[in-house]
């Protein structure tokens, strides 16, 4: 199907790209239907686009690309909420707050997005007792920014 996106105009998406957030997201609890849209020519980011409000979209990224030892403990309430049966079906992403200049951009590691790819259900999961910050620098010290390549 075709949807309107905030940044890329109309794009065609498949069913696999559509996710339901049964509880919405904090601050946007009425928004439950989103699509994951690739960034043209940029694999580092994806767009989480509301299917109801063209002006609501989040830039998201794979937190493990930047913080290879990032760890999230998924409690039973979350597993029930998005019907997790198989850990292999989980994808964890982080919302990015893009700043100008880009190097000041942050990502929210305190409240990652947990996707159940099999069921196409998702939730923003607020970690209760974590040391991860909601404004974690996307780029660490210059040399540490691309740990995975080291």
């Amino acid at each position: 199907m075709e949807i309107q996106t905030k940044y890329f105009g109309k794009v065609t998406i498949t069913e696999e790209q559509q996710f339901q957030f049964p509880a919405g997201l904090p601050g946007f609890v009425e928004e439950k239907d989103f699509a994951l849209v690739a960034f043209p020519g940029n694999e580092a980011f994806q767009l989480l686009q509301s299917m109801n409000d063209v002006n609501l979209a989040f830039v998201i990224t794979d937190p493990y690309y930047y913080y290879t030892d990032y760890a999230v403990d998924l409690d039973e309430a979350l597993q029930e909420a998005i019907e997790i049966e198989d850990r292999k079906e989980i994808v964890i992403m982080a919302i990015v707050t893009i700043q100008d200049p880009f190097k000041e951009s942050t990502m929210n590691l305190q409240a990652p997005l947990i996707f159940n790819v099999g069921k196409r259900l998702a939730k923003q999961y607020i970690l209760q007792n974590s040391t991860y910050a909601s404004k974690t620098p996307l780029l660490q010290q210059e040399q540490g920014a691309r740990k995975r390549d080291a």
Partner: protein
Amino acid sequence: MLVLTRKTKQSIQIGDDIEIQVLAIEGDQVRLGIEAPRSVDIHRKEIYLDIQAENSAASVGPQNLLELIEQSKDS
């Protein structure tokens, strides 16, 4: 706002299935135990507000967001 006075070990029942118990009081800190269905999300208020604010900020983004992301590939 409904205001109730409780002592240690006493509880407040909200609806059929939510109970909040005062476990301990130490100085200006109160330790609470909360029993609620798993479908009810419980958060420290300031953390929830922070996540709300951060989501709001992330959803706006600078005018030249696409340009900034494009340039980030070179850095």
